């Protein structure tokens, strides 16, 4: 696992990072543009999502139809999404087609049509996505949890607000695009089969003369509602619990990540064992580590029938609190085995690796090689993780439930 990481920062601030994987036929890219929903003005939630939607409706010499056809004919498997910090465009294809795929996406970054005659179609697409979440209670509870856990604007859902979506104008979209689709702060991660010198040249030709623009400061507002129940007629009650952790760039990140891995991951992890295996309370229960650039959190979920939701909440919170008492060697050994496996298998996927290296650049300013991650994981001990847990016991919980009846938050949750 000793591949070099290539890095080049262009004069306009664009960062290109690339990791060769010559055993693959494919090449993949992940483009992170600093155009995430944290940039939406307070009452214009959805503006970044709508901008991303419109940016794909024709760019450069291609109208929206040609854009889709050309990428399909190149066999580019692709997806787009908006997170708090970024609009993300990613794709994977046979190695020979990477330069052409990048050419198409360079037009999205620099010459989107943002066609007026398609604005209403784009608006309808945004409405459809917004409405779809209303029917996914497991997704909705986690969206509502994030919104109450992180300070605004970091917890905002990319789907936005209905009222804003109804009235966003093309002019607003153009301004949002001009302000945030810029090379400074944009990261392009490439992984798979490619030749570095050629890749650097292609990217330089496509994006080297892209004009930088000033960013805007983000104003944070602390969250104020730590417990909420959202009434909903459903068979199951959805339970979402969050607690603070350290961000990815923090020196204790590996300890924090290790601790969550004991809580949730394989079927022998604590939450699965106590909540599902022993008591049969849930089909789905998990905890997952999440990071922003400067904040980290652990998000936990359990879905259970309304009648058993109170017990499920209590059992889950007890496990979270109990984690602070420390983990044991067999748990650590299993955790290490899982992580090492996952690291090796990451080398099978060019798209997975392109996403990780782009994300590393944003969160850390450099890429952690697989070797480095392996080493840091090897260095974990019960002592180091338990020391971290003693100083950062799970607590200060944000709790959101969604279902027919509200629950009582037990003492551990307060």
């Amino acid at each position: 696992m000793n591949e070099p990481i290539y890095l080049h920062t262009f004069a306009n601030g664009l960062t290109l990072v690339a990791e060769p994987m010559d055993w693959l036929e494919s090449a993949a890219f992940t483009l992170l543009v600093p155009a995430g929903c944290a940039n939406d003005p307070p009452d214009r939630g959805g503006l970044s999502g709508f901008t991303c939607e419109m940016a794909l409706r024709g760019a450069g010499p291609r109208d929206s139809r040609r854009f889709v056809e050309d990428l399909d004919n190149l066999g580019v498997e692709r997806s787009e999404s908006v997170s708090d910090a970024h609009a993300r465009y990613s794709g994977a294809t046979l190695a020979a087609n990477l330069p052409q795929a990048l050419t198409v996406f360079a037009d999205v970054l620099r010459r989107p049509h943002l066609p007026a005659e398609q604005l209403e179609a784009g608006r309808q697409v945004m409405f459809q996505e917004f409405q779809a979440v209303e029917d996914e209670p497991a997704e909705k509870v986690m969206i509502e949890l994030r919104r109450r856990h992180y300070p605004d604007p970091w917890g905002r859902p990319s789907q936005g607000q209905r009222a804003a979506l109804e009235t966003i104008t093309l002019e607003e979209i153009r301004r949002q695009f001009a302000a945030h689709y810029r090379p400074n702060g944009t990261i392009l991660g490439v992984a798979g089969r490619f030749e570095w010198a050629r890749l650097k040249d292609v990217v330089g030709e496509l994006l080297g003369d892209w004009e930088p623009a000033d960013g805007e400061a983000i104003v944070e507002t602390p969250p104020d509602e730590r417990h909420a129940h959202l009434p909903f007629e459903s068979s199951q009650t959805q339970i979402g619990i969050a607690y603070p952790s350290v961000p990815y760039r923090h020196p204790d990140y590996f300890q924090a990540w290790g601790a969550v891995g004991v809580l949730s991951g394989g079927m022998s992890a604590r939450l699965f064992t106590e909540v599902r295996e022993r008591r049969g309370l849930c089909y789905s229960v998990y905890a997952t580590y999440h990071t922003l650039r400067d904040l980290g959190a652990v998000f936990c979920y359990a879905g259970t029938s309304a009648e058993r939701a109170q017990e499920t909440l209590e059992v889950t919170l007890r496990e979270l609190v109990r984690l602070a008492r420390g983990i044991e060697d067999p748990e650590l050994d299993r955790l290490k085995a899982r992580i090492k496996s996952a690291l090796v298998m990451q080398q099978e996927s060019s798209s997975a690796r392109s996403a990780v290296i782009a994300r590393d650049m944003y969160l850390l300013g450099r890429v952690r090689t697989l070797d480095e991650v392996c080493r840091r994981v090897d260095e974990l001990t019960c002592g180091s993780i338990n020391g971290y847990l003693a100083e950062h016991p799970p607590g200060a919980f944000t709790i959101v439930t969604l279902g027919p009846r509200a629950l009582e938050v037990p003492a551990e949750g307060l």
Partner: protein
Amino acid sequence: MEFLRATLENGLQIVAECNPQAYSAALGFFVNAGARDESEELSGVSHFLEHMAFKGTATRSADDVNRRFDEMGAYYNAFTSEENTVYYAAVLPVHQQAVVELLADILRPALREEDFETEKQVILEEIRMYEDQPPFGADEKCRAEHYAGHPLGKSVLGTRESIGRLPVEAMRDYFHRRYSPANIALVGAGRIDFDALAASARRWCGAWEPADGRRVVEPAPRRLSFRVLRKPSATQQYAVQLAAGPAATDPDRYAAKLLATVLGDDIGSRLFWELIDPGLAEQATLGHYEYEEAGVFMTYLSCDPDRAADNLRRILDLYRRAETEGITPAELDQAKSKVSSRIVLSGERPRGRLFTVGSDWVQRRQHRSVRDDLRSVAAITRDEVAAVLQKYPLSQSTTVTIGPLAEVPEPQ
């Protein structure tokens, strides 16, 4: 890359696509047991049994099983469909033998009553979970309607009643019948040591007693109908449509898959341009699915309730137009590029190859490499696609729609 196979005396099949360059080894037991093999009283037993396999064996408790998988750093799970139950794990190659031993062990589960009663609660939670998420059971109801009493229309999950009433002895009996070694294939993909795999199979599965678990396969009738179900708490309206399509051994299934890509892939297809791009629907897709002696095309729609009737009519018109006019050369080429790329990309992971290699063996007793599949895709002609459209008209279908609407007019 080498494809190797062996068969044990008791009928167990062992097959592997061996790639010494791969980083991992993916292994799975594919059991010929699914919803279509169940009687009414046993509805959901295959899926429940899949869960019970992880709850312990003669020598291992459920905790032991879970810990052992995690000690190997395995990426593992299982699933049940209409026709198969598959138990799989991807591991670093050094763990190949250990994971085969473990999987073989859980394929002879203890089925202890106490674990049975606890896990029953988990199954009931899973049923509730699907009640709360789209399409709120419309997919299972559409299958039941479409197959008009034929076993392929049976529910995989079962109902609260059938699961609640299920006694452990009935599961043990079902297990003995269906999990006969002749109904099971041990499949490998990635960096597999085939000799070691065959030796493991002999050692851990050689004593498995054969039973007469042959599946009864009868031709599937199709019932065309249009049904409206109400889910007042839903925001969007959903529709599932099933139409007949090529079966698992039919040579025209490649043409069927390309047709489905042209008409209803989630991007760049006719349904995409007609319904998704203008924001008339949130999802509108068409896929082809294949079974023993039967196949279906499935259309899936989700949209604003106000647009549902109109969208269903548009879909019908779109299918009729395709039946009359066929697809264009440009559309066929575009679909081929997309599908070919997907075949290559998913084939780069052993755990991607495992399911393709396993299905090809279980359904067709064939091995097809990535190159073989790419060649078959490239060779499809418009005439072959037109033949599929004639033989399997998409405009003749079974529809179940569910959502807040009390009434939805059937499109004419």
